[in-house]
């Protein structure tokens, strides 16, 4: 495939994903409100666009499936077919298949995906036009449920000019062998047509579990009179009634009018949507933005140099220009940073569907509430936050939320509420996953922690409830006994915590037993620019992220003690282990200088505090994180590099892996 085609392919993939997401969202809305025409139209448009794109690109399976979806959708739009939960499920399955096909294309896998089953079902539903639908509805009124297979048979039969009868048969009260008579009725009917269903079921009738009457649904080419005569020949059997459910009801005039107004609304909605689209956007490759960001970074560095020149050479003529450049560069920096910000919706939008599917699978009734979809986060954070959130949501649905019956027994609203909220707080973004399920039992956590040897009895004694609760983030902890398909495959919340920590964020849990659980994740707005403390270790400069630092202090040689070969110092009555950075950074070791004072940067990794000994504190600064590249990736203790104002490169320490 040449370059050009590749570019189209990427565009196609991206837009397809977007359209599939639209359809997904639309279907969820439609499930809530099947009458929502605007949503139906939106789905229709997305499917239509997708079909067009796929056909142009030569992906015939996608085109075919979307085409069939479109057909059924248009029947739905014209009220010829009613939106039922089965149709909803079918559409969801179609979207899943389409998704799969798109991802296959993305991964360069050209293997065909079998869509014949879906296409068949789509056609089947599509052919249920209103007249046949009416029969089924009539039956439904009498509380008779035909399953999918039976419905299909009926529709096919009607299409092949069979008559559809409901025959009610009465067997004389004094008849001794009712079962045998009934059997004879079935035998006779089988000869003239196809029995779809009977009430009560055939098995029950054979077992004589019925009063004197039963009904049979049958497709037959014979007239009702012939059927009646045939059955009349059997002793002790009288045909009570034969109904042939009416065909082809013509909508009445006012219904037509309704239709007309509805179509009017349709067109109006379309126009509204067109107006909506006028605010234009451009797709940009994230790599290009990164480039732009780098260039701006260079500009900032050079601006600093220019300022230096202006100051040292006292060129007052430069003053105004330098100030202008300063203003423009900082504005440019802001704009570029802003461009990299993406609404968290990108991550959130897949959750409603996920929650719906999971809740269905688990047989739980859940009301999922999303708030703050428009909250913006840096692209780099967005890409990473999805998995931890999936984990937390699954956890809530699986372990937190109870079934409706259980909730009712506890006197709670049978429908559980699961909330996913995002909001900005200062320089961070807070994401909350909250459920009103059964909560976490502190006792259970205690026992489990002891049992798994995560901590000692004495340690637990000293912990406050919050501390105990947070034990669930320890590696190797999982309170559910049985391993479920959804979550808790041995890997637990510790994975979530590790991931979020690696994003320089934190996660916290609050829970009230019986009332619910709330996980709060706090993330920095961006990973690209962080506040850091610059320190000097011998002659080298390193940056320590401010987020990891608790405090800084000074010590003299005399304050350093040795406990079991570990150098420690006393900090406000607490023992603080010390780590000479020169040792961690493989510099030649120097011995302590009695005369000098050393600086200690107290950093925190989880619950552990360590004092990093450095030679000098340079100061706090905003730095742009640059990756060290593939060749140097995965070096423990180093998170990346930053280019300082003087053009030199300083390495950023990764406290999580430093010691």
């Amino acid at each position, binding site marked *: 495939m040449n370059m050009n085609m590749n570019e189209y392919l990427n565009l196609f993939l991206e837009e397809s994903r977007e359209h599939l997401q639209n359809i997904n969202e639309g279907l969820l809305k439609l499930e809530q409100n099947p009458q929502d025409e605007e949503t139906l139209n939106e789905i229709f448009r997305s499917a239509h666009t997708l079909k067009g794109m796929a056909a142009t690109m030569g992906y015939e399976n996608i085109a075919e499936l979307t085409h069939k979806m479109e057909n059924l959708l248009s029947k739905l739009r014209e009220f010829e077919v009613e939106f039922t939960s089965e149709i909803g499920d079918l559409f969801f399955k179609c979207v899943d298949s389409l998704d799969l096909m798109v991802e296959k294309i993305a991964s360069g896998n050209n293997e065909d995906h079998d869509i014949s089953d879906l296409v068949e079902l789509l056609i089947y539903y599509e052919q249920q036009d209103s007249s046949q639908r009416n029969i089924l509805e009539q039956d439904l009124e009498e509380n008779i449920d035909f399953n999918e297979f039976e419905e299909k048979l009926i529709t096919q039969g009607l299409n092949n000019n069979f008559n559809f009868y409901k025959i009610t048969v009465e067997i004389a009260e004094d008849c001794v062998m009712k079962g045998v008579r009934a059997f004879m009725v079935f035998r006779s009917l089988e000869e003239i047509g196809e029995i779809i269903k009977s009430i009560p079921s055939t098995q029950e009738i054979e077992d004589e579990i019925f009063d004197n009457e039963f009904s049979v649904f049958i497709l037959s080419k014979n007239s009702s009179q012939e059927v009646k005569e045939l059955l009349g020949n059997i002793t002790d059997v009288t045909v009570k009634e034969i109904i042939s459910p009416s065909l082809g009801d013509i909508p009445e005039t006012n219904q037509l009018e309704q239709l007309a107004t509805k179509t009017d609304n349709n067109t109006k909605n379309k126009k509204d949507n067109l107006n909506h689209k006028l605010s234009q956007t451009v797709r940009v490759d994230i790599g290009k933005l990164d480039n732009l960001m*780098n*260039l701006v*970074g*260079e500009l900032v*560095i050079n601006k600093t140099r220019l300022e230096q020149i202006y100051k040292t050479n006292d060129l007052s003529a430069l003053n105004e220009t330098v100030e202008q450049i300063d203003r423009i560069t900082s504005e440019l920096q802001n704009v570029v940073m802003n461009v990299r910000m993406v609404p968290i919706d990108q991550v959130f939008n897949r959750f409603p569907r996920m929650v719906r599917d999971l809740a269905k699978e688990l047989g739980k009734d859940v009301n999922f509430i999303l708030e703050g979809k428009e909250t913006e986060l840096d692209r780099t954070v967005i890409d990473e936050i999805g998995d931890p959130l999936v984990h937390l949501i699954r956890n809530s649905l699986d372990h937190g939320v109870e079934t409706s019956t259980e909730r009712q027994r506890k006197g709670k609203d049978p429908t559980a509420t699961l909330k996913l909220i995002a909001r900005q707080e200062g320089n961070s973004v807070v994401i909350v996953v909250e459920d009103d399920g059964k909560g976490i039992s502190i006792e259970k956590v205690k026992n489990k922690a002891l049992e798994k040897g995560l901590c000692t009895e004495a340690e637990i004694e000293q912990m406050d409830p919050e501390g105990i609760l947070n034990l669930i983030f320890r590696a190797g902890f999982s309170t559910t006994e049985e391993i479920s398909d959804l979550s808790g495959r041995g890997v637990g919340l510790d994975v979530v915590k590790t991931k979020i920590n690696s994003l320089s964020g934190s996660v916290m849990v609050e829970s009230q037993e019986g009332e619910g659980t709330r996980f709060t994740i706090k993330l920095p707005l961006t990973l690209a620019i962080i506040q850091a403390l610059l320190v000097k270790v011998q002659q*080298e400069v390193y940056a320590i992220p401010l987020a990891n630092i608790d405090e800084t202090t000074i010590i003299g040689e005399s304050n350093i003690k040795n406990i079991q070969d570990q150098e420690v110092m006393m900090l406000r009555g607490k023992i603080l282990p010390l780590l000479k950075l020169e040792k*961690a*950074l*493989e*510099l030649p070791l120097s011995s302590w200088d009695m005369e000098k004072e050393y600086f200690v940067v107290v950093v925190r990794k989880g619950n552990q505090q360590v004092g990093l000994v450095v030679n000098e504190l340079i100061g706090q600064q905003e730095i742009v994180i*640059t*990756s*060290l*590249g*593939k*060749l*140097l990736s995965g*070096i*423990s*203790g*180093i998170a990346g*590099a930053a*280019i300082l104002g003087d*053009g*030199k*490169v*300083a*390495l950023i320490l990764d406290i999580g892996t430093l010691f």
Partner: protein
Amino acid sequence: MKEIQVVAFNLAKEEYAIDILAVQEIIRPTAITRVPKAPSYIEGVINLRGNVVPVVNLRHRFGLKEEEQTETSRVIILIINDMKIGITVDNVTEVIRIKEEDIEVPDLSDSLDQRFVQGVGKYNGRLLLLLDLEEILELTT
């Protein structure tokens, strides 16, 4: 007749060459930041107009004696597998065209680890060692 263009440079009295298509630019040595725990032949990282680029010390990689930088020392910035990487050399001599038929793959086990050398190019009586960059940077494994 096919020929390739190479950048020729010196390192400890030997003459080496790299395919010019892999070379982005040649710069004078700048401040290098040491990277702890990195492979020992990586001298550190430099700031190349806002990009952080790792620099490989070729002398160290080839097991040659380390020497002070001189006025002629250069860093050749290469692009290999989309990565920017610098290598330090004693001096860069010229850009040469070598005919493909003048390149041989001899047995060189005495002077230099053979795995770093793709072949030897003959040019006006000079011998140029053509380097296998992927092997030098351990990208093949």
